[in-house]
Structure formats: C-alpha cells, structure tokens
C-alpha cells in the first residue's frame, strides 16, 4: 500500500511518458475552464433569488416586505432582485462579500435569527452593516441601475430634484444617506444620522 502511494507520488513529479506535452497543456487548460466555470456557476447560483429566499428567515422577513415596494413591482416592469442590491458586480468585491455572507449562513445554522422576533432584534445590526457597506462604496449597487449622469431633474418631483441637484450632485451625500428603508422595513432608527 505505502509503496503504491510512493509510486504515484513519484509519477506525479516525473515528466510524462504516455501523454504529449500538447495534450497536457490543452487538457489542463480545458480542465481549468471547466473548474473555473463550475465555480462561477455555483457562485451564480448563490446569487439567484431562489437561493437567497431558500431559507425561511429571508423569505418570511425581508422578501415579504420587498414585495410591497417599488423595487418589486412598478410601471417600468424592472424588478430588483436581492443580489442586485446586495452583491457587488466586481469579482473581487463579490468574493469578499461572499466570505462575509458565510457569516450569515453561520448565523442561520446556529439559529441566531430563526424566528421573526430574533430577526427583528438583530435587524438594526444587520441594517447597519448594509448602510456602512453602501456608504463606503458610494452606493455602487444602486448606481448600477440608477445612474446619476442620466437623471433628468426636470422629470423628477421638485422635492427629489432639489435634493439630487444639491447634496447628491456635490458628492456630500450618497443614495443610502437619504434612501434608507426603500426595500425593507426599518429597525428602531433612534440615533441614526438624518432621523
């Protein structure tokens, strides 16, 4: 047994006898693509809404609430999915976010938010993470759909145009500073800036 292992180990580090260099390079290349693709496909799946609301914590709380908002149903028929707002499109940011999200999966496994009550108790903390993230990346996810450069202030309501042409245009504020709670219900907001 030990000898066999030793044999294969040695084989691994010896130049190939049976396969051509070409085969190995191309084969390795293809295997790489398959692996990479598979990895990304798995990643894509974790981005789908079916995955996000696969656990009842998300379905019964945040998804339910999203359904009443403009991001679920509107005159334009554009529907924002969980990942549109919660997963960065840039690959490295994405992986970083996934690692962070694993903590939430951990939370699920150990039942920190497995009832509505526990979820509500934890909501302020979870929301603060999201606000901090969106604040740090200048509301990148919002801007993937809403591009400031193409906003027509004349088509907006006066209240909106007034704020967008001043605090937003100057870069003093970003979307999330003024638009908290657009997709879900808010936690106790005492002490939050602007409330």
């Amino acid at each position, binding site marked *: 047994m030990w000898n066999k292992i030793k044999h294969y180990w040695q084989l691994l580090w010896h130049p190939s006898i049976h396969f051509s260099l070409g085969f190995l390079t191309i084969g390795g290349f293809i295997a790489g693509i398959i692996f990479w693709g598979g990895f990304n496909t798995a990643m894509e799946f974790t981005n789908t809404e079916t995955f996000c609301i696969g656990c009842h914590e998300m379905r019964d709380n945040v998804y339910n609430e999203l359904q*009443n*908002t*403009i991001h679920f149903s509107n005159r334009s028929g554009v529907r924002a999915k969980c990942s549109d707002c919660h997963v960065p499109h840039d690959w490295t940011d994405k992986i970083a976010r996934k690692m962070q999200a694993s903590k939430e999966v951990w939370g699920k496994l150990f039942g920190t938010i497995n009832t509505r009550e526990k979820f509500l108790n934890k909501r302020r903390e979870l929301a603060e993470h999201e606000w901090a993230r969106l604040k740090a990346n200048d509301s990148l996810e919002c801007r993937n759909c809403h591009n400031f450069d193409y906003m027509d202030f004349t088509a907006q*309501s*006066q*209240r909106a145009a*007034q*704020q967008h042409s001043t*605090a937003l245009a100057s870069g003093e504020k970003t979307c999330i500073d003024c638009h908290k*709670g*657009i997709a879900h*219900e*808010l*936690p*106790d*907001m005492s002490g939050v800036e*602007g*409330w």
Partner: protein
Amino acid sequence: MNKKRLLFPALLLIAIAVFAEESITTLRPNQAITEEAEPPSMANVVNTDIRQERNYPMQPPVIPHKIRNYQVDLNTNKCMSCHSRERTQASQAPMVSVTHFMDRDGNFRAEISPRRYFCLQCHVTQTDSPPMGKNQFKDMYEVIETNKN
C-alpha cells in the same frame, strides 16, 4: 279581521323593500344587481410639491407629495426625518407647527406629542380623481358676505 290586521304590516314591508331597492340602485347607478360594475381606474396621488390653500386656519394642510412606503410605526417616523425641527434645513420641508409639541394640558414638550405621532390621522394626500359628490363647503369670508345682506 285577521286579514285586515295583516294588511298594514304587509304594505309597510313592501314599501320598505321598494325603498331599499331604490337606495341600492342609486349606489350602483344603472347597474343590474346580477352584473358586476366596471370599476373606475385607480387614481394617482398628487405629487406636485405645491402647498395647498387651507379652507380654515385650523385645517391640517393636505400633503402635496407622495408618501408611498413612508414608514410610521413604533420603530421610526419617516415624516419626521424631514418635518422635524432639526431636519428642516436639510430637507427644506416646513416644520410641524408648534401645536404638534403640545400635550393635552397645553404644555409644550421637547418632542412632538404622542397625540400627533401618526400624521396620517389628520394629514392626507390627494388624488387626481374627479370628486364623487358636489362640495358645498363655504369659505368663512363667503359666509360673512352672505350674512351681511
């Protein structure tokens, strides 16, 4: 004798039935009872941002903007994120008037009174739908004018 006694209540019942039927038909104009009425199209909330005239000084002003999904509950009051004293400069919204800080004994408090927490009890948005009935409201000046003569 029995028959005569029954006659009056019977007539009364028929009369009530007829009147009742009529009052139902006025609520369902020209609509057979067996048919479903065509509902009018949904009206849009007026979002002009132009403050509306009040009909008398004590009237809670109507809301001139949309309030879809503005959360007002135990957790938070979205309206106050613009209409509170500290937020008016940033939001350029009119501050809730001082009566909102008054408790029932007439004392002014630092925060708005719990009696005024649920804004939509008194303030409402308007829609662009045609009025359902004729408005017979008369402005005070109008009343004074007519009483002069």
